């Protein structure tokens, strides 16, 4: 079992200036390269906070995610996974805290960070009135890639993700699995170093899931880092070699899969005891089953 990362809400300086894109001399100090403490983690999170009204969605996360691994961020619904990933990828401004990707601060050095990460958020749309092919073509060009290169990569990605037949269909008419796949293609197009995927397998059919899985495994085998959130433990257990468990806005455990699982037979069991949820039995549903009405 990994150690508890007991993050105390010590940051009392609520009036401190919030991080802004391009803010000169931000909080990020380590600008690339290895430090004395060892290799630079793919993602370094320090004292990350986000409140929505009275409720703290993310309550002081401290976390280092190692590079080149397949990392699962797991937790029950409402644990703060999406909020955390949004803040890590620069989509949501944190109330407080530091986020670095490969040593670059997300909020003070967006130029370095945005070209190094790929994002597939959950619950946010794409430009759906474009066809799949157009979406990739525009995304690549807006990321500053040369047009020929974009077209070449687009064709390959569409082919590998089994979307070639639907490439001229508007994304608004795509199924959930196809949307996830085109979103993944858009996130991979600029060959990012770290890939953040929020619930990439949610609502995806097994065939598309297998295709996505194959692409992600190929990506990590080539040295890329994948950080993905999920609440399906079997999936995380079969895909990831490193996990972080979130509950109620905090990291309750993190580390290599075997370490987090510990003596428990499955990750599911370890997870349930970590988040303090006993298996409930339906004792009051005595009418259920055994004849109609």
């Amino acid at each position: 079992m990994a150690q508890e990362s007991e993050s105390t809400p010590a940051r009392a300086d609520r009036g401190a200036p919030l991080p802004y894109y391009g803010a000169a001399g931000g909080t990020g100090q380590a600008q690339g390269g290895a430090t004395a403490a060892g290799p630079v983690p793919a993602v370094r999170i320090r004292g990350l906070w986000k409140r929505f009204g009275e409720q703290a969605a993310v309550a002081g996360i401290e976390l280092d995610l190692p590079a080149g691994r397949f990392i699962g961020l797991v937790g029950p619904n409402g644990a703060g996974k999406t909020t955390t990933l949004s803040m890590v990828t620069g989509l949501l401004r944190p109330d407080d805290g530091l986020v670095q990707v490969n040593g670059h601060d997300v909020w003070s050095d967006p130029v370095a960070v945005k070209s190094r990460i790929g994002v597939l958020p959950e619950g946010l749309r794409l430009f759906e009135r474009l066809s799949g092919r157009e979406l990739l073509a525009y995304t690549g060009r807006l990321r500053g890639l040369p047009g020929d290169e974009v077209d070449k990569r687009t064709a390959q990605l569409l082919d590998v993700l089994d979307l070639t037949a639907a490439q001229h269909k508007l994304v608004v008419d795509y199924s959930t699995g196809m949307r996830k796949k085109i979103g993944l293609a858009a996130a991979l197009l600029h060959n990012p170093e770290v890939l953040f995927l929020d619930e990439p397998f949610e609502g995806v059919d097994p065939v598309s899931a297998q295709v996505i899985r194959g692409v992600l495994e190929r990506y990590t085998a080539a040295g890329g880092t994948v950080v993905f959130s999920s609440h399906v433990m079997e999936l995380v257990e079969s895909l990831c070699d490193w996990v972080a468990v979130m509950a109620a806005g905090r990291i309750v455990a993190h580390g290599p899969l075997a370490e987090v699982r510990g003596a428990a037979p499955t990750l599911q069991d370890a997870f349930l005891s970590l988040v303090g949820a006993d298996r409930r039995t339906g004792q009051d549903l005595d009418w259920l089953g055994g004849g109609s009405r």
Partner: protein
Amino acid sequence: MTVAAPRAETAPTAASPSIIGVFVRLKLSLMRGGLRRSRGRTVGWCVGVALAMLYALANGAGMIALRHNHYAPAVSVTVAVVLGIGWAVMPLFFFGGDDTLDPTRLAMLPLRPRPLLTALLISSLIGVGPLFTLLLGAGAVTSVANGPAAVVVAIFANALLLVFCVALSRAVAAANTRLLTSRKGRDLALLSGVFVAIGAQLVNLGLSSLSGTDGLRRATSAASVVRWIPPATAVDAVRSTGRGAYGLAAVQLAVTATALVLLLHWWHRSLHRLMVSPDASTIAASPEESTARGTAEGRSRLPLRLPSGRTGTVMQRQFRYMWRDPRAKAALATGLAVGLLLPLVAVVQHGSVYQCLWAAGLLGIQMYNQFGLDGSAFWTVMTAIADRRDAELELRGRAMAIALIAVPYVTVVTTGAALLLGRADALAETLGLSFAFVGALVATGGFASVRFPYAVPHDNPFANAAPGQSGLVMLNVFGGTVAGTALCLPVLGPVIALHLTGHHAFLWLALPVGALYGAALAALSLRLTAPRLLDRLPEILATVRG
């Protein structure tokens, strides 16, 4: 299988009162639930209902005042036909808003079509629409009801009119459920607002052409045909009874009743089909078909030839969106149509050539709330903007897309209007002012898009802003127009001064000065706004994702 048999026996075979009661309560609960979602919506609903009721009462009273008037029969049958048309097209607008309109939601329940039809029909009679219809119908039948027999027929006819309208609406909705629940149907509903607005203008023109005495005679002769169209037949039966033509009245009532029975039969068949056939909308099209269709849809019309620059890419994306997104299309079409209509009115009424500035204004305000239409897809814009330069090019691409439409359009409309008005001498200054105005609105619109964005809801085709943000919309529209006009003063002031001092020979200078000023103003504003866009990316996303 052993379970299915006893279940089928317990399913109601006739329209038992319990089923009708359930549907009536369901309808009431859905109405209540729709109102509970927000206080603003409740207030809006109450105001809307109050206005509709006032209108219906005033209209009904007006009709009653028309009693014994020569034109009362023509007016009453017209009202009945208009009500019928209104109910027939209503599902297009409100399908998404009324859950009970969609019978496929009930497909999993053990209900037979006939009792379901009765229950749906009765529950449909509850609501503001039916009450509105009842009031208008009461006015229509009262205006032609002369004598006690006619009054009895009038009560019956009004009920028949109401049931006919409701059944018509339901039958149309059921027959087109597949279309109306599809993406294309929802797109159509969004665009229908523009069609209705343009249609209303045509009706307006038609009405004004009927304003002469000759026109009224034509209206009366048209009514002699209209009175044979159900549900107008029911209303005209009242008049026939009043005149003592009982046979004719009986025939007219029979025609209405037959039409109603046919409608119910059509509805029954659609319901049956909907409830026993599976929804095919999620079945994947065969690869060959989708490839063929896709080629026709996406490729051949707009070849994928993109400039490598960021501005060009953004412009192309914007153009595609203007064409494919019904919201963007509706906004642009409205701007283009009204921008043409107002100068045309000027031409017809021999008004001022300066009314052409409307075209510039209506196209310039398209720059406002640029990111609201992106909705949550704004995150993709956000991930691709890393520095100030990216932000500026994003804004510039959007502004150029608008300018590429606005500048030629304004030029053509203004030139045409000036020539038709015989004011070719004022063309240069009007165009100059127009270009300055477009530039000023693009400049303020870019800033407002960044500083005061608002979410455009995706589920309601008629709402312009999400609940609670209408203040921001007002700020955008009024503040933007005032600021835009103020920014035009450096061109407007000298033009007025030249007019006042009589130096008309120098007025042509307004064209180059206005064009340059507008372009420079827009470019400067976008440059100054770009860093703010970069700073506010997460805040804009949080606002527009709605």
